[in-house]
């Protein structure tokens, strides 16, 4: 187990004067590989802002984000891009699949961006573990919501990132499918030794997580696990 991500005293403030919004205030956070952390909180509390700062998509107003050994603030945009491609996988609410690519090509796209990511064995394992082997010839439009999210998970893991960020990955799913997806995430965290951060609104899913962080009005604190 190693610490893959740390935030130290991160603040994010939007606007000035009476339009000022403090989205994140003095957030300290860290996660280790193999850990599955949930982020909960009311709408507008700063969850998505938190994820985008972790991914280097926006800069914190103050504080420091450290991925592996590197400070994000010291990176150029190009380096941040490379860092995202190398180290971070994304699973978004409405799946991040490309509409005109068959499932197998969604995975191949990653090889096309960087041929060193080609890994037949990993691909086979992911297709099997996520139970999407039979779907490889299908387009996203022909998949159910749960299948789409499973394919999205496969894509987010195929380039072998250390960290996976999931912003409400179950929002478009019914309870049964949502449970399935979260179970898979929990399993992947352990089996593939990934650090997974999942934003969710659904309290019933929290049982699968190792830790639960609650954000309210920009403040983040760890809460006790509910069964």
């Amino acid at each position, binding site marked *: 187990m190693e610490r893959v991500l740390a935030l130290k005293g991160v603040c994010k403030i939007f606007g000035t004067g009476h339009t000022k919004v403090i989205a994140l205030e003095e957030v300290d956070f860290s996660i280790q590989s193999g850990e599955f952390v949930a982020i909960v909180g009311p709408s507008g509390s700063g969850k998505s802002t938190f994820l985008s700062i972790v991914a280097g998509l926006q800069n914190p107003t103050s504080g420091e984000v450290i991925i592996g050994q590197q400070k994000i603030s010291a990176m150029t945009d190009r380096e941040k891009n490379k860092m995202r*491609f190398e180290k971070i996988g994304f699973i978004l609410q409405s799946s*991040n699949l490309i509409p005109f690519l068959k499932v197998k090509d969604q995975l*191949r796209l990653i090889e096309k961006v960087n041929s060193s990511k080609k890994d037949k064995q990993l691909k086979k394992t992911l297709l099997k573990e996520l139970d999407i082997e039979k779907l490889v010839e299908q387009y996203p439009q022909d998949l159910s919501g749960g299948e789409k999210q499973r394919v999205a998970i496969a894509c987010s893991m195929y380039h072998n990132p250390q960290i996976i960020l999931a912003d*409400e990955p179950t929002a478009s799913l019914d309870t049964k499918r949502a449970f399935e997806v979260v179970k898979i995430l929990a399993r992947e965290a352990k089996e593939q030794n990934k650090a997974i951060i999942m934003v969710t609104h659904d309290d019933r899913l929290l049982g699968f997580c190792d830790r639960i962080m609650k954000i309210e009005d920009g403040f983040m604190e760890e809460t006790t696990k509910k069964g």
Partner: protein
Amino acid sequence: MFLGIREMLHSKTKYLLIISVLMLITWLVVILSGLANGLAEGNRLAVDQWQAEGVIVSKEANRNLNVSTIKDDTTYQKKNSEPINQMSVSIQKAASASNKRTNVSFFGIQKNSSLLPKITAGRKIEKDNEIIASADLKEVGYRLGDQIKAGTYSKKLTIVGWTVKSTYNIVPVIYTNLETVRELKYGGDAAKEDTINAFIVSKKEKDTIPQSKKNEVEYLPIESFIQSLPGYSAQNLTLDTMIYFMLLIAAFISAIFIYVMTLQKTAMFGILKVQGVPTSFLVKSVMSQTLILALVGVSLGLILSSATIIFLPKSLPFANNIGEIALNCGLLIVVAALGGLASIGTIRKIKPLKAIGG
């Protein structure tokens, strides 16, 4: 490539539409340039057949062969030049009941003149009122030995031979001797004895124009003579301008199409950027799409053009110039691809942040 090709295969209709527009533009460009070439050739073919370096015309003629008059006297050396008479007139068969007339251009030349194109049938001119006509006239029904009437000229002319196709001012050329054209032009006017229209110069020398004639006649290099042919430059300019506009339109159409397609894909590009896919990858994908569209569109346009050319009526002045077609098609591909470049800025500006935010 990968992303671009998959997308085109998935939304075939959209991309087929733009391909067919590019195809039609290519078609138009090829046909227009063929017509431009055909017209240009129809204007100058006979001049090209002279294989001359230049022309001597009278100064007051304003470079116009038809109205130029030169008194052919002994001061002209005529080492590397020879006289020519020219007249445009309409002809008809003397024997035929129909009044079907054909416009032609008469060239009066010396016996054994080097200005006469290759004779393909019949014989040389031996006496007045014998003519050798361009092969085109066969296509409108004239035969070897036919007697014809030219304009108001009272005597009958006899076709004694054919040359290869030879045209001037887009009408067929009829070759005869200097005297016959002179009579056609001036009747029997004795004052016009020894008058010719011009000298065709095969090799310019210092004394090509004698000192004493310097203020009466001028020497025109053959290319400037051709540019001054009536209507020649204007026609070329018109058709060339149309071709350039088509190129411009092709650039705009591809630019607009690629731009709209890029806007439609903003969300998708945002998601890819979130995942760390570099902008250069997205730009390459769009550029390769544009290039493929241009290549396929232009190729189909070429196929369509070749098919059309087979069915063009013979009367249409049309001449292919492979070099020019290649150049125009190359330009079309380049401008269409440049149109795609217009969207690079848009792709760069797409913010990955938008994709996150549930």
